[in-house]
Structures are given as structure tokens and as C-alpha cells.
């Protein structure tokens, strides 16, 4: 082990190439992970912030807010189900917003939520015609007190404050009362309008200790299966494109890990070939194959840790440099740790390709060829 560390110290140039490539791979891994987390957060954070445990859609809606309709009767039925402590309607409409001072064609993409039960970080529903705005909209020029004109119908909504981390489908959100939302929806989307009292979905809060899965089944049974009830996490995953994004990025991340295994395997296999004579001598003087292979693994782990550190620093720098509302990039400690663990795993697996060569070294032959 000491020999492996000494070689790293005395001949760092030998490991620079592997470190550079692994740094690229580490950066790629963290970049991909950060992009995935950013995209998912941008698509789902408004739903995940709901304080309730369950989200109820109509059964024919395929768990889509836009296609779901919940009437007041259904809402009353659900409120009476055992274990349900509170029920609140929620609705969504995606519109272009005209910002005062901006060009007529320079619109902002916004998602107007109408709500009854406030999500995390949002106060109770404001008076009709007013809304809280997600902070990403502030980064795009929206200010407190501004009146945004939504959609073709120019529905006015005054921004009375900002909330953090509530995006939907990659867009900033506005949080208003049901009347404001219903008015904007019916005026701007006549084909998707809703009647008085109708919401697209319901957020359901449960009594403490109630099993969400059992409550979801009870709700659907109480409505004769005219509803489809999901946990908040499942509702977030049901947003269009979320699962596709996750599976695509996870496949790419998996492939990148395979590349890391190949790269580490290739480099340490070659280094082992280069050091055959030296290993022969070491074996001749009593070094065990286990010790020699342990040295190779140690070197790979150190090189990987250095590469991960540099890659992580680059990813962190990118995370700090990216302004809110631009590239959907979010770097979390969990993502950094997962990426480093994956790379270390790849390094150890890659090194295993050298094990056979180390075991095969014959001290006598090696000494002969070496001399």
C-alpha cells in the first residue's frame, strides 16, 4: 500500500491522463444528475409542496390536472370518507403573461394555480384578482405590486408577494383563489373551461396515523371509482414527461458509469502491464498478489476521489453561476454523494480487470525478463 501511495506521489504524471478523463466523466455524471434534478424539480415542485397526502383526479383523466374535473358533490363525498381531515380544490392553467414595461410580444410563461388548501410556504388564498408568484418569475422581471395580464383575454392578476421553489412543468407559478383561476381558465381556454364550483383536482389531508394507500382506496371506493387517487409523490410523477425524463437521464447516467468502468479498467490494465517486471520482483521478495492488487485499487480510488473532487467543484461552480430561471440545474448533496459512490464503484470494478494479470505474474519469469 505504501508503495502504491509513494508511486502516486513520485510519479503523478503517470496518473494525470486517467485523472483528466475521470474528471471529465465525473463532471458529466454530476452535470447529468444536476440537470435531471433541476428538470424534475422544475416540473414537480409545485405539486410536491402540497401539504396534503393525496391528490384526487377524475378516473378518466389519466391523472392529468388539465383533463380532470371534480364536482362539488364528489368533493363532499370524499370529505366524508374515514380518515380524511380536510379537502381542498386545486386547478391549473398555463398561460402567457404580459409584464408591464415589456414588449407586446415579450410574454412570460406562467402557470396559474387556484387553490383552497395552501401548499408549503404559501399563505391562505389571497383576495380575488391577486396572487403570490414563484421566485423564478421575480428573476424574470416580475415585481411585487405589478399587474400581469394573462392570456388572450388579458385577465388581470396582481402580484402581492413571492414564494420559493414552486414550479410546474418547468414554468414559474402564480397562486390565486379559485375564482381568479376559474375566471382566467374560462376566459382563455374555452375548450377546457369548468363550471361553478368545479375543480380539476382535490388535495386531501388525512388524520394523523391514517395509511395514505388505504385512504386512497377508500376514496375511490366511496366515489364508485369515478376518481383516481394518488399520493402526492405519485401525482408529481404523473405530470407529463417526468417519468420519461427520469428514465432517459438514468439510462444515460448508467451508460456513463459503464464508460467510467471501461476507462478505469483500460488504464489500470495498461499500468499493470507496464509494471509487470516490478510486480515480479516484489513477488519474488515475498509480496502477496493481494497486496499488489490492493495497491492498484488504492491508486484507482485516490485518482477517482481527486477526479470527483475536481468534477464536483466544477459542478458546484456551475450551480452557483446559473441564474434562477435559466438552465434547469440543481445540485444536491445527495446527487454529489451518489455520483462519487458510483464512480468509486466503477473504479473498483474497472480495477478488477487487472486482478488476473497481477495473479498471473510469475516471479521467476518476470525477474528474467526484467533483467
Amino acid at each position, binding site marked *: 500500500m505504501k508503495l502504491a501511495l509513494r508511486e502516486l506521489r513520485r510519479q503523478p504524471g503517470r496518473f494525470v491522463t486517467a485523472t483528466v478523463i475521470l474528471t471529465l466523466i465525473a463532471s458529466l455524471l454530476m452535470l447529468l444528475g444536476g440537470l435531471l434534478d433541476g428538470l424534475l424539480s422544475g416540473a414537480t415542485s409545485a405539486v410536491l409542496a402540497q401539504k396534503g397526502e393525496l391528490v384526487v383526479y377524475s378516473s378518466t383523466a389519466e391523472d392529468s390536472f388539465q383533463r380532470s374535473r371534480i364536482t362539488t358533490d364528489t368533493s363532499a363525498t370524499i370529505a366524508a370518507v374515514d380518515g380524511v381531515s380536510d379537502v381542498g380544490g386545486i386547478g391549473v392553467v398555463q398561460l402567457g403573461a404580459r409584464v408591464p414595461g415589456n414588449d407586446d410580444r415579450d410574454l412570460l410563461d406562467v402557470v396559474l394555480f387556484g387553490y383552497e388548501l395552501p401548499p408549503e410556504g404559501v399563505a391562505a388564498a389571497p383576495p380575488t384578482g391577486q396572487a403570490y408568484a414563484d421566485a423564478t418569475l421575480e428573476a424574470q422581471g416580475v415585481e411585487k405590486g405589478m399587474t400581469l395580464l394573462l392570456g388572450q383575454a388579458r385577465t388581470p392578476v396582481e402580484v402581492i408577494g413571492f414564494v420559493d421553489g414552486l414550479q410546474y412543468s418547468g414554468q414559474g407559478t402564480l397562486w390565486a383563489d379559485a375564482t381568479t383561476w376559474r375566471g382566467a381558465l374560462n376566459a382563455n381556454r*374555452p375548450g377546457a*373551461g369548468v363550471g361553478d364550483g368545479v375543480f380539476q383536482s382535490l388535495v386531501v389531508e388525512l388524520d394523523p396515523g391514517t395509511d395514505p394507500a388505504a385512504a386512497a382506496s377508500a376514496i375511490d371506493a366511496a366515489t364508485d371509482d369515478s376518481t383516481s387517487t394518488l399520493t402526492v409523490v405519485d401525482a408529481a410523477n404523473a405530470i407529463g414527461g417526468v417519468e420519461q425524463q427520469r428514465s432517459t437521464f438514468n439510462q444515460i447516467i448508467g451508460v456513463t458509469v459503464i464508460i467510467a468502468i471501461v476507462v478505469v479498467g483500460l488504464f489500470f490494465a*495498461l499500468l499493470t502491464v507496464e509494471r509487470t517486471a516490478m510486480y515480479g520482483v516484489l513477488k519474488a521478495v515475498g509480496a502477496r498478489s493481494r497486496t499488489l492488487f490492493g495497491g492498484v485499487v488504492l491508486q484507482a480510488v485516490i485518482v477517482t476521489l481527486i477526479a470527483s473532487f475536481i468534477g464536483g467543484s466544477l459542478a458546484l461552480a456551475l450551480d452557483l453561476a446559473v441564474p434562477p430561471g435559466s438552465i434547469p440545474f440543481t445540485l444536491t448533496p445527495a446527487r454529489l454523494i451518489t455520483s462519487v459512490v458510483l464512480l468509486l464503484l466503477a473504479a473498483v470494478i474497472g480495477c478488477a480487470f487487472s486482478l488476473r494479470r497481477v495473479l498471473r505474474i510469475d516471479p521467476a519469469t518476470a525477474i528474467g525478463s526484467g533483467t
Partner: protein
Amino acid sequence: MFLALKEIRRAKIRFALLMGSIGLLVFLILFQQTLQNGLITSFVGAIRNQSAPVLVYSVDGRVNLQGSVITPDLASQIAAVDGVAASGQLGQGTFSAQAGGSTETVGILGYDTEGLGSPDSMVGGRLPTADGEAVALASAAGDGFDIGDTVTIEPGGYEITVVGLAEQIGFQATTTMFTTYPTFEQATTSANPDATSAPPAVITLRPESGVSAAELVSRVNDAVPEADAYTRADAAAETPGVAQVQQSFNIIFLLYGLVIPLVTGLFFLIITLQKAGSLTLLRAIGVPGSRLVRSLIAQVVVVLAVGIAIGIALYTPLSRQQLGGIPLSFQTGAVVFWSVLLMVLGVFSSLFAARRVLAIDPIEATTGAGVGR
């Protein structure tokens, strides 16, 4: 050259490992290129493969069929622009539907004028001629969208019969159907009785003879402040999400494009260092440096060619599959582009090893030093 090939034969595992690695990387690049194209086609194929050369959204629509609403007044203003030969309307809605025994998400596009919003990539059957008929995405034929199948809109139970199939007409990664405008209206009111109307999402235009599509786009945008006109290709490219998908993939391609030459270059550099003694000896007995470099480059070309061939061989069968509902297709252009680019970059990366070879001083054969020093 003989020596170069002989060395590859003698060190099969070493070179096979590199060829396999390059093959895997090439496969990944080609696969992701195909996935990107398939993904984008499934998002905006319906726009690319409809027949109208110009699409006009409302400014509020943000180049999104799902967000754009055209009022009758706006439609009249657009149709009156100088240079418009004909105009039509195209509506879009996303519905839940029963098809093939299961509930599917279906995108429906309704057009009122053939040649202005109708699909132009038909592969079977015919265009709808009556209400309740539609052309469906060909790749979804096996899922209850084949000619003769009935698709039932939920809720409401409105039935649409598939009478034709067209390829690459996906929209927002859903199974998509093109139908008549009245059918689209009936599907909308069937699914949502609260709907007060089903206005068009875009106005489709055909320019007069002598007026290009791009010119008509400018005229519409200049004349109607509430209109947002695009050529067909621009409308597809500007659809929200398309540019982001392309940017994300481009970053990944760039990184993969860096990894392959790096792996190749470093591999041959290490091999050169390992052969230091032999190369010095060859130089000492009179072999010119240029010949050794040619030998090195020959090895690089062989390794890259075999690696690229492995990658293409792995990619070919996969490119004919569907991935998560996204139909893939063999991208000849991508294969040629990446093969040439990676070959050039790979050969270029071997110049570091070539530099080492040329730096060999034959006299060092007598002192034991070589390229490694």
C-alpha cells in the same frame, strides 16, 4: 505497416479492449442521436408532417398548439393579410381515450381544409372524409389505432374510426390523430361538457404564387400584432421543449466526442511508452521515424475503423425498435457524420504519440534511454 498489423495480432486482448471500448462509445453516441431525433419527432412530428407551409399562433400561445387560441376576429385579420392564397384552421386537444382495450392519452388535431393542416405522410388508408373519422399515428397501429379500429373519447363516449395511417405525426409524445374540424369539436365537447367552444389553436396559411413562406410570415407578423407566424419548420423547432432537448443532448455529445479521442490518444501514448526500447532499437538500425509514425497511424486507423464498425453493428438492430413508445429509425447522416468526426479526432489525438516517436534519439539505444525519458 506489416509490423503494425502484426503487433495488433500479437496483442489481441489489448487492442480488442480498446476497439470494444470505442465501439461501445460509438454505439452510445449513435443511439442517443437516434433517441434525440425520435424524441423530437414524437414531440413535433405532427407539425413537421402537416401540409400547411405557414402556421399562425396567437402571441399568447407561445408557439404552443396547446396554449394558442385564435379568436374569430384574429382569424379574419390573418386571412386578410396581403399574400395569403388560402387559410384554414387547426385545433388541438389532448384527450383520454379507450383504444385496444386500454385507456390511452390521445392528441387530436382537427383541420378544416385538406392541404392546410392535413397529414402529408400517409402510409396507409385515406384521409377522413366524414365526421367521426381520423388518420392515426402509424407506429400506434398495434395499440388499437389501426385502420378500422374505433377509438372512444372519455368521458362522453364519442367514437372515432381510424381510416388512415401516417408516420411521424406524434405530438407531445402522445398517440396522435388528425381528423376533421367538426370531429375535433365534438370530441372536445364530449370530454368536457363545460366547454363553451373549441376554437382553433392556429390559422394555417398557403402563400400566393410568388410569395415565399418566410415572406408571408414577415407580412403576417408585421400586419397583425396579436399574431405569431412561423414557417412549418420554424414552428416545429420553436415549440417549447424542443430546443432544451437539443441543448441537453448536444452537451452530452460534446463530452462523448471528447472522451473517444482522449481514450484513443492516451492508449497509443501509453503503448508507445511501453515500446520505447523496441522503437529506439528500430531507429538505431536505420528505420526512419516517418515509417514508425505511419505504422502508428495505421494502427490507430485500424482500431478506430473496427471500433466504429462494432458501434454501428450494435446500433443497427436497436435503431429499428421502439423505445418507450418512441419509434426509432436508422440515422444514416448521423452514422456518417460521427464516423468521420471520430476518425479524424482519433487520428489527431494520436499525434501526441507520434511526437514521442519522432523524438526518439537512436543513439540512446546504446545508453538504455528511450522515449520514456
